[in-house]
């Protein structure tokens, strides 16, 4: 009796306490005023008669507009459609004429001339040229002359690598201006080209690699921002290309917005330091095609503290991506004068090409637009470089391209071995011999096609339209391969479609004694080239070989046949920055001596690599110390378990 009473009393007490506590909170809120009451946001009202409102397009108004023809561009204003005549470029291709220097020329100008004259765009005839290039970096006084074929400046590109040189000496008319760090106010997007501000001592070819190659730091280990007036740990690394200008060792580099700071921008890029541009008053170099948001940050100089705070909070993944992009852009477009000029020309060519220009992806991911030619395709899927980004992979077939040179025996055994591969789609015989090809060829499971060549060594790398697959197995009539070898090599190539996968290797070395590059065909513990007498590679490299190599280098190959191998390897290495891949190859008795070059290398051949390296301006070859074998290769397990049994024979 009493217990229930007690319990109820307890309960009531508890309840009152609880409610008291609950009640106090709102009372407190009532007592303490919380400033002006925010209340619910008063949004834009929902009008009762919203449905009855009139459209901004009054019915019938638009079609009645009086159409007009475009007005002539206002004085001095030009854009691509109005001021550039593309008709010349369509008929004769993109040819560039460079005005010869009228007087004493600067060192810079000499470099420019040299780099264009070596390129495939150059023409000596001003009448067939699509673009006339005029460099305005001559010493003062020499630049007031209006060149002979000026034509109001139409189809002219005026190069101004220094902001101060020769400005306003004559009317530029309809000429495009390629200027270093142009101010945003005068820059005409889509017409002018923004160049980087280059130091005097910028190399013509090659150029120093990005600094991250030396010490690629992992994201997140340091997030120091380096203001340029000194307060940051400077690492005077081994890589000092500009005397007196140390490359900053920081994650972010703050760069003020003045034009003169363009130099620092480039240094930061080289150092792998993410440029943070504070309200730049100048247009970023090649902004028409380069997506700078992937490599730099353009911030407002009025909010330095907030910018720093935001940088500090940036996730390491993003920082890592930004830093790698700085290196890619530096190496691809900025590290040498030749690259800067070629990029400029490529941009103008892209404008002419219109829909068949480089897609943005080709500009902004390795290997870059200078090595991914839109003449091959505008779809990234066709190139060997973008399979990962596109979520695609190379198709499962290859075409065998057999080159029959001077000896002229139809390689019947080889054809049978290759045709036996389940991955083979077609066999092309490139008959490059004085004798006519035999009328009958062996029966094969795959189509066999004979192409007559012109007996030039570089013929084998022409982009034949008959090649229907991404993969090419390049072969010599002398080569001997087994079906197992072919099968396995192709499966490996599918994992590395951008590289060359070969059987026989050479390696390059620096000859200290003679101070030059050399190479050896001896078997060694490492290699940097694979012979194209038996190698898988992507069809694209035929296009690249034919369309991007300077004529001088291709002539070199004609003179010394082994040089084609060197050239091809250089080209692929320059595009991928990776070594080729070697797969197992069973040595046969008949090829005790290297097939292509009986009696070792002649003097021309020995000379070749050094001259090719000079032509490239740097040594792109990379050595590898590994060979890819089947997983169970020569393992102590029954041969019946193994997939590539043909490779197991001693």
């Amino acid at each position: 009796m009493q217990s229930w009473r007690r319990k109820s009393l307890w309960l009531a007490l508890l309840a009152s306490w609880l409610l008291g506590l609950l009640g106090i909170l709102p009372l407190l809120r009532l007592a303490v005023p919380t400033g002006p009451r925010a209340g619910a946001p008063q949004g834009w009202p929902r009008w009762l008669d919203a449905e009855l409102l009139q459209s901004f397009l009054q019915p019938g108004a638009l079609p009645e507009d009086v159409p007009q023809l475009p007005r002539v561009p206002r004085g001095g204003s030009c854009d691509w459609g109005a001021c550039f005549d593309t008709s010349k470029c369509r008929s004769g291709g993109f040819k560039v004429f460079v005005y010869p220097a009228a007087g004493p020329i600067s060192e810079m100008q000499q470099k420019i001339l040299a780099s264009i004259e070596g390129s495939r765009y150059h023409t000596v005839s001003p009448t067939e040229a699509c673009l006339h290039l005029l460099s305005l970096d001559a010493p003062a006084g020499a630049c007031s002359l209006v060149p002979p074929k000026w034509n109001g400046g139409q189809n002219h590109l005026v190069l101004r690598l220094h902001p101060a040189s020769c400005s306003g000496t004559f009317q530029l008319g309809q000429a495009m201006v390629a200027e270093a760090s142009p101010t945003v106010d005068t820059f005409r997007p889509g017409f002018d080209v923004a160049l980087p501000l280059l130091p005097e001592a910028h190399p013509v070819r090659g150029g120093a690699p990005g600094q991250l190659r030396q010490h690629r730091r992992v994201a997140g280990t340091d997030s120091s921002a380096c203001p340029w007036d000194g307060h940051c740990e400077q690492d005077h690394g081994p890589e000092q290309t500009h005397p007196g200008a140390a490359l900053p060792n920081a994650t972010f580099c703050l760069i003020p917005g003045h034009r003169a700071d363009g130099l620092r921008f480039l240094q930061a890029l080289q150092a792998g330091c993410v440029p943070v541009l504070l309200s730049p008053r100048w247009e970023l170099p090649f902004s028409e095609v380069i997506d700078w948001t992937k490599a730099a940050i353009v911030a407002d100089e009025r909010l330095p503290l907030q910018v720093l705070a935001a940088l500090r909070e940036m996730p390491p993944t993003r920082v890592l991506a930004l830093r790698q992009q700085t290196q890619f852009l530096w190496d691809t477009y900025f590290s040498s004068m030749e690259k800067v000029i070629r990029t400029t020309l490529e941009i103008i060519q892209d404008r002419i090409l219109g829909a068949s220009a480089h897609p943005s992806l080709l500009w902004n991911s390795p290997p870059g637009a200078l090595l991914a030619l839109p003449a091959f395709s505008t779809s990234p899927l066709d190139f060997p470089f973008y399979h990962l980004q596109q979520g695609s992979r190379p198709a499962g077939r290859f075409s065998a391209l057999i080159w029959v040179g001077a000896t002229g025996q139809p390689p019947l055994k080889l054809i049978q071995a290759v045709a036996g591969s389940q991955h083979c789609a077609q066999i092309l015989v490139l008959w490059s011999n004085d004798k006519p090809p035999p009328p009958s060829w062996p029966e094969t499971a795959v189509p066999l096609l004979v192409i007559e060549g012109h007996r030039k060594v570089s013929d084998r790398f022409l982009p034949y339209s008959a090649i229907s697959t991404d993969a090419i197995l390049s072969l010599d009539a002398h080569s001997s391969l087994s079906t197992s070898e072919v099968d396995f090599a192709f499966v490996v190539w599918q994992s590395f479609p951008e590289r060359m996968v070969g059987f026989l290797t050479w390696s390059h070395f620096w000859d200290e004694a003679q101070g030059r590059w050399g190479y050896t065909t001896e078997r060694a513990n490492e290699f940097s080239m694979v012979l194209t007498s038996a190698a898988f590679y992507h069809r694209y490299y035929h296009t690249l070989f034919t369309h991007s190599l300077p004529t001088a280098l291709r002539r070199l190959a004609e003179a010394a046949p082994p040089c084609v191998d060197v050239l091809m390897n250089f080209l692929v290495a320059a595009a991928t920055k990776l070594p080729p891949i070697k797969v197992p190859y069973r040595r046969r008795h008949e090829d005790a001596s290297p097939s292509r070059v009986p009696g070792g290398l002649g003097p021309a051949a020995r000379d070749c690599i050094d001259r090719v390296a000079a032509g490239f301006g740097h040594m792109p070859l990379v050595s590898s110390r590994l060979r890819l074998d089947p997983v169970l290769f020569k393992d102590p397990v029954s041969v019946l378990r193994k997939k590539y049994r043909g490779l197991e024979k001693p």
Partner: protein
Amino acid sequence: MCASVKYNIRGPALIPRMKIKHRIYYITLFSVVLLGLIATGVFQFWPHSIESSNDWSVEKRSVRDVPVVRLPADSPIPERGDLSCRMHTCFDVYRCGFNPKNKIKVFIYSLKKYVDDSGVPVSNTISREYNELLTAISDSDYYTDDITRACLFVPSIDVLNQNTLRIKETAQALAQLSRWDRGTNHLLFNMLPGGPPDYNTALDVPRDRALLAGGGFSTWTYRQGYDVSIPVYSPLSAEVDLPEKGPGPRRYFLLSSQMALHPEYREELGALQAKHGESVLVLDKCTNLSEDVLSVRKRCHEHQVFDYPQVLQEATFCVVLRGARLGQAVLSDVLRAGCVPVVIADSYILPFSEVLDWKRASVVVPEEKMADVYSILQSIPQRQIEEMQRQARWFWEAYFQSIKAIALATLQIINDRIYPYAAISYEEWNDPPTVVESSPACTHVSALGTVCLSASLASTLLLVLEDYSGVPSSEKWGSVSNPLFLPLIPPQSQGFTAIVLTYDRVESLFRVITEVSKVPSLSKLLVVWNNQNKSPPEESLWPKIRVPLKVVRTAENKLSNRFFPYDEIETEAVLAIDDDIIMLTSDELQFGYEVWREFPDRLVGYPGRLHLWDHEMSKWKYESEWTNEVSMVLTGAAFYHKYFNYLYTYKMPGDIKNWVDAHMNCEDIAMNFLVANVTGKAVIKVTPRKKFKCPECTAIDGLSLDQTHMVERSECINKFASVFGTMPLKVVEHRADPVLYKDDFPEKLKSFPNIGSL
């Protein structure tokens, strides 16, 4: 008394006994207090809920009832637009301030009706579209109703169409806005600029420093990086229901559907049609239609009548010529129809060109080249055309289809300028969403948030994916962006850091340390001491080695400690090695490091494993037999980039990390999944198979235990595959050996002779 004693025995008697009278009194008191408090509570909470849902309770108003503002004739006029304005000169960024969400705050002025001295209205109060636009902003995350906190101000004065307003008076109306301040941070939306006869390409209303989101900019009026070029909205987007048509060849190659064209252009188009016949169709206004037919929705060619915009779906390319203005609403209709616009309007700044890559969705032809348009278009390969058609449709869906889409894209562009470090990337703006699964269509995220993808586009994308179909779903390859995309071979001199995870097998650990220290490229050795109950041996007892040795004690015995990104790791390369792996030779380890240098973005390991699809059970199976393929390497001995430690610790999807720690198993499989998923690449197995002291088999040997182990490992694969939503592992048939391995070559000349031997 007796009872009270009893209470004392039972427990503390806080409440003394009371009489019934008292009891009633107390109960009443408590009831009163209770009721009072309930009433207070109700009073406190109830009104709030009423206020917060004022959407439905607030009185609705009519546009006609808005307050009227009379503008004196001599009220100030802003200066004309300043052509040199840039964000860092004319925009007051201090108003935006620091914002943890990196979102600008936008304020909308309340609606007023402006009249001049004589009471004549300055313009239509507001158009339907501008009302929609302001509603969209108000409903977005950008909106604020607090004028003091706003960073961007949007006047409610409607200037979408210049023809509907009086220029001078509108300018005066702008100038008297409470925060006008020379137009700083004010954003005006205009789609139809200029007026007869010379049709300026930007709004003629003097606006001083105000930003202009304009629909017909030319290169001469557009302030790059300051103004925003927007589309001219096509009301047909909402009025007409147009089922989507996928890309592919269509009946007409080139179509012109615009009505008001300059005779000279029409002549040129006529010439094109005469030359190329059926494949070119030039449409014009219908002259002989009966009155009740909407002339906007019909087009005619000679006597044939076509429905507009349906006819656009019949064409591959559609001409968008300049009219009196550069910006044409037809562009929106064309994109919607999946027809590739052929823009012939010199100097026109395409909509949102600051962020959208129009090369992917359109063809721009100079007016002078109009005669060549056909041959220019014919040179485009079919595959690229289909890509452009898809892209055009995607642009419409994401950025053109509604006033809301246009408004939000504009604000996003301005937002990205103010918070560049949080800006949306090129890919997010331009890449059409890929369909992951055959899930409902509204889950695809564009730059601006969720976008509903129409069914047919989804199906075409799926079709594309199916082209790559292999056996199980794992063979669908998704696109990846490799975090280590730069092709670099790290310098050999950097060396690697070996991380040995150990619990208490000190003797074995010391042997591993001694063996590993013989590897030339080792630069540091890190022992992760995972035993909290036991201290590591004294310093003097550890083997003396030539590189720094560091012991890290962990707080908890977790497998994920092995993959923690310790500050002590100074090299890019990490060798994870178990404390019982003593059979690897120095040559093998050094060679493994050399291989890693050539593949720094992959896992490079010694024992290889494979995952297989079990057709009977319809699930994944773990395989450790002698197979011809590998898809995983065990991290009991593997090289990898330090970055993956960061990913494993902080970016592992789902609950995998905790799951692994809880089950004390499969951390290596998790790492294989993670790396393959993020790089899209396969592992590299190095050197021939060795008789490892089977890292799978635990202390006791035995078939049954081995089998349960295999079952557990298979479970891990299935679990991880479901968390990742895909099977990222890639199967390869190769392993890496030294160049001259097993070659007929003098052993003493080989770099790594001691490989594969036991």
